[in-house]
């Protein structure tokens, strides 16, 4: 609680600075109402922005876009939760103004090298959600997790699961594994985690899709997976924290790099972010991060923007929205309410500078 209050105050300062900069660069705008524009530099943004991509941060983005509509009433932003794969492809085809993605851009995804910049926004846990009324507090080690998702373990009363849960009475039921049917950044981060932490127990590699074992069920986007788990006794799957919480799923505590079993919470996610190192392109990897309290399956999410926007209206709107998204206290409060961890200050500053570097016109 204390921490978030601190960040909030720190952030307001950053926001002011960034806005001052943004105000200077958009000199083409005539100043209509001095009182209004001084208080609210976003009011002058106009037009429509179409964006698509990751479903992982969707709950946050939608709530934030709704709140931003109050600040910039003449700007209409649409974010379609399509999955990272489609987001990257549509951005690459020039159909959208920006894209949400949880995974980095690979060759063949769509966008050409040099035609995009990463803006990290928030991070969140990927929960291992399950439906097993007999076991309210499941604990899983990375190796057991890898075996469950590669179907080497197919029963809930398997010795590996029993070893992780010495106190639980495990039912003699089949495990139903649920994964994504669409290309997904959540899948990408989850499988990356399994590669990093699962060792020789995970042999399926990582990617927006992998070749899942044949008898795994699939759902459309995070919410589709959540629905299947909700309806299926004995099911287990990976769902983003916001959707898992909102749909009332139960999630497992996962053994982190320090050997502790940690339940996904906002605090555990923030703890994982503290240990992450930032790459030059502003991508970072909080998966399996060190720290006694870090939740190990913590995934970043990015917004892809173009280095240059030809249309000044679109460019100003993208920059304005993202600046607000990263720095405004309202946006940050929304992120926390929806269960997303906001960036530590060091990363946020660089992200804001990245937005500032986008040229318009």
């Amino acid at each position, binding site marked *: 609680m204390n921490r978030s209050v601190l960040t909030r105050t720190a952030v307001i300062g950053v926001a002011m600075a960034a806005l001052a900069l943004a105000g200077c660069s958009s000199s083409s705008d005539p100043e209509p109402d001095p009182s209004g524009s001084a208080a609210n530099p976003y009011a002058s943004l106009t037009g429509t922005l179409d964006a698509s991509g990751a479903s992982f941060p969707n709950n946050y983005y939608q709530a934030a876009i709704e709140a931003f509509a109050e600040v910039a009433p003449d700007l209409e932003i649409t974010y379609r939760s*399509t999955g990272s794969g489609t987001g990257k492809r549509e951005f690459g085809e020039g159909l959208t103004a920006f894209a949400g993605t949880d995974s980095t851009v690979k060759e063949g*995804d769509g966008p050409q090298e040099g035609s995009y910049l990463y803006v990290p926004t928030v991070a969140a846990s990927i929960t291992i959600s399950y439906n097993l009324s007999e076991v309210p507090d499941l604990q899983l080690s990375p190796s057991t997790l890898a075996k469950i998702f590669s179907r080497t373990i197919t029963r809930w009363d398997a010795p590996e699961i029993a070893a992780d849960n010495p106190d639980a009475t495990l039912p003699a039921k089949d495990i139903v594994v649920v994964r994504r049917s*669409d290309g997904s950044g959540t899948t990408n981060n989850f499988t990356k985690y399994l*590669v990093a932490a699962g060792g020789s127990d995970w042999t*399926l590699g990582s990617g927006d*899709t992998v*070749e899942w074992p044949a008898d795994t069920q699939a759902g459309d986007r995070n919410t589709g997976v959540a629905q299947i788990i909700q309806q299926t006794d004995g099911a287990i799957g990976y769902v983003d924290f916001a959707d898992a919480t909102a749909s009332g799923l139960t999630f497992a505590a996962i053994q982190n790099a320090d050997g502790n079993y940690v339940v996904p919470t906002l605090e555990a996610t923030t703890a994982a972010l503290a240990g992450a190192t930032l790459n030059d392109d502003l991508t970072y990897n909080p998966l399996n991060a060190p720290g006694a309290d870090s939740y190990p399956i913590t995934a970043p999410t990015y917004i892809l923007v173009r280095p240059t926007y030809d249309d000044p209206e679109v460019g100003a709107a993208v920059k304005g929205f993202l600046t607000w998204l990263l720095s405004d206290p309202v946006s940050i409060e929304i992120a926390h309410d929806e269960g997303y961890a906001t960036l530590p200050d060091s990363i946020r500053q660089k992200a804001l500078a990245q937005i500032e570097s986008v040229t318009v016109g």
Partner: protein
Amino acid sequence: MFRWLTLAAGLLVLAVLALILVFTVKEAWPAIQHEGVWGFLTGDRWVPNDPDGPGPARPMYGALAFIYGTVVTSLIAVIIAVPISVGIALFLTEFAPRRLRGPVITVIDLLAAVPSVVFGLWAILVLGPWLFDAYQATHGLLGAVPVLGSIFGPPQGPRAFMTAGIIVAIMIIPIITSITREVFATVPNADKQAALALGATRWEMIRGAVFPHSFGGVVGAVMLGLGRAMGETIAVSLTIGAATQITANLFGSGNTLPARIVQNWGDPGIPPGRSALVGLGVVLFLITIIVNYLARLVVSRAEIRMKGASA
């Protein structure tokens, strides 16, 4: 002038069909080439991506699991729907009191009018959870029996071949019923009266006079229902579980050709992913055309025979 206008409209049908074939085959070609025709049809691995690390070194497009799922769900649907449809058709032609006939026909027509997505919604939110309990009971009962045990294997939740088959069965009942009813109505009254006059019971009359006469027509109706069942997309996509699986277990989840297309259209993976999805469409198109053609053939043969009989 007017004549040519009408001819053009008629030719439009031929043009659209030809264009469908040209456009879809052309788009599907890169993916089919990627695997080879045989590989595309008989591969059972579908990975529209090149994952990092171990695993397949390239995207793989094998349609077999989806072909299997399409055939299995539509067979389940037909096996359930045919006896019910024949029963309703018999009810309408032989048993129903005159004043019941109209309302029953209306009800069956209404069944046909309910959009498939509404059946899908009901199936996944209401029927599926009920069926899951039934599957568990059935598996508990038959799980140990040799062959039945693997057909009614361990349930994997409400989403299964069986759920999809049942919901499609409900959707094709009106089609099979209406054609079967028409076929039964062509049975010469003289035959039926003759059978009854010889002292046959209703059942014996139906077995001896109605069934032999209308066998071909009923087979045609069934094939038409089968064609329709294979193309059903949305209700199946919601209820089958989207697993790329070939299994004898009807309580397991799988996928069908059209369902796979609609699930992944928004995100077909790296090229030639979209091409591969269109390839699934081509396979579906060809299968349904063959089934429908055979159906029409059987029906028209039967029609000729029936006309001969009634003349």
